[in-house]
């Protein structure tokens, strides 16, 4: 790995995305990206007794599928990196215990997808490991239970709130097998805190982090928005992405034409999800379906994926502390 600038690294080996799997819940399956997802689960309990168990089952199904798709045996996967939104990363831990693949648990809230891609690519760069599996996900009902109110409690959401995506995305990276899609550069974000304290306004809390990471990437690689076919943020939602575009404009980059937000595009406006999707499963499921399929087909050549995470804890938030945000960037290239 070659370091270019303070936060950006160039991947020197040939690291390919050899297989991806996306699995989503029923609501996401009714959204505009339905045709791109590999699995749409009608039952958000996956036949389990609790939502926490259902989240695990979702992970297991997606991970088993990505291993199969990559044409590998379980023993050939050297490492599994990833996480979820649950305290102590329970979902990932139970799944790693089931799969018996060496596991590094990561937490950067909703930015865990790009974080795991960066760690996975670094492990492949270091040599030794040949195939690394990266996966993150989230479940609406487990996140609601942990961060907000009971599911059947009748309350009104703020008009600027977002909706946690039920979904898992898994990516198999390899330095020995090859494919059309390769990871070229990565930028590791800094935790950025602009003082937002409203737990419902996560887009506003994360937008500055996304702006810092993307503008740093542009400066350090001496490129700009015109050099890429697609710039995708993770889960800023509609309001958050509007703020992000404004912030980028202040930095001198007009990203209006080739920019999408995974959270904004995963639902339609009539699905009652307010500003759009959020959660670790948001960028994970959109990246491993829509973005990867468009990269493999050659429709996109160069893509920047910037997963964004709001690193809040209900405890510190109730104590009046602000919500720090983080964003990591991965640059992918298709043929």
């Amino acid at each position, binding site marked *: 790995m070659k370091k270019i600038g303070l936060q950006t690294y160039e991947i020197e080996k040939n690291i390919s995305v050899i297989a991806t799997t996306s699995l989503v819940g029923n609501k996401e399956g009714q959204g505009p990206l339905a045709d791109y997802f590999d699995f749409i689960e009608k039952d958000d309990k996956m036949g389990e007794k609790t939502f926490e168990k259902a989240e695990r089952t979702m992970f297991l199904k997606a991970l088993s599928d990505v291993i199969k798709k990559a044409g590998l045996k379980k023993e050939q996967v050297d490492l599994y990196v990833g996480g979820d939104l649950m305290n102590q990363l329970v979902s990932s831990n139970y799944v790693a215990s089931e799969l018996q693949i060496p596991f590094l648990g990561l937490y950067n809230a909703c930015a865990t997808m790009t974080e795991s891609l960066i760690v996975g690519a670094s492990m492949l760069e270091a040599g030794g490991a040949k195939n690394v599996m990266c996966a993150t996900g989230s479940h609406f009902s487990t996140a609601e239970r942990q961060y907000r*109110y009971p599911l059947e*409690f*009748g309350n*009104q959401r*703020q008009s600027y709130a977002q909706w946690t995506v039920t979904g898992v995305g898994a990516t198999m990276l390899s330095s020995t097998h090859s494919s059309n899609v390769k990871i070229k550069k990565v930028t590791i974000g800094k935790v950025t805190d602009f003082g937002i304290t409203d737990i419902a306004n996560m887009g*506003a809390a994360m937008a500055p982090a996304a702006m810092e990471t993307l503008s740093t990437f542009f400066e350090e690689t001496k490129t700009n928005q015109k050099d890429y076919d697609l710039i995708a943020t993770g889960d800023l939602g509609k309001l958050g992405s509007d*703020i992000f575009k404004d912030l980028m404009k202040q930095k001198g980059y007009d990203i209006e034409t080739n920019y999408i937000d995974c959270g904004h595009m995963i639902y339609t406006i009539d699905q009652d999800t307010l500003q759009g999707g959020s959660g670790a499963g948001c960028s994970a499921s959109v990246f491993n379906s829509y973005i990867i399929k468009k990269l493999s087909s050659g429709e996109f050549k160069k893509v920047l994926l910037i997963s964004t995470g709001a690193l809040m804890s209900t405890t510190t938030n109730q104590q009046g502390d602000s919500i720090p945000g983080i964003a990591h960037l991965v640059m992918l290239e298709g043929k």
Partner: protein
Amino acid sequence: MDKQTRNEKYIEYVEAKTPKAGWFTSLFHAFVMGATICCLGQMFSDIIRSFYPMMDLLTLGSWINIIIITLTILLTAFGCFDRLAKYGGAGTFIPISGFANSIASCAIEFKKEGLVFGIGAKMFYVAGPVLVNGVAYSLVVGIVYFIISLF
């Protein structure tokens, strides 16, 4: 620009940019929902009255509460109440229905964690603050009442 000014400017900008819920619509929805619940209460009261014309007001009031609470808990269990509340807001929360829903939803939610540490410990997770508030205010009112009664 130092960090504090940057944050202040950003928060100001975010507040201006964030869409506000239309207060008139929310107020109207709350009014419709609250009024419907009250009318239902009145309807049950009239029905009971027609059968038991001698029933005193206190007993009648208790019966209305029991009926509204039972209906709310049933709607919560069938997963419909949160939809009503999404429309009605304070209109569903302020009458006794809101209180019943907050306890029933917690009981359903935390059943998975067991009878003691689940339902037992967390049933008043949302309703607890309301109870504490009620007790605290009644204490204040009690003291004021006591002072007034001295003169």
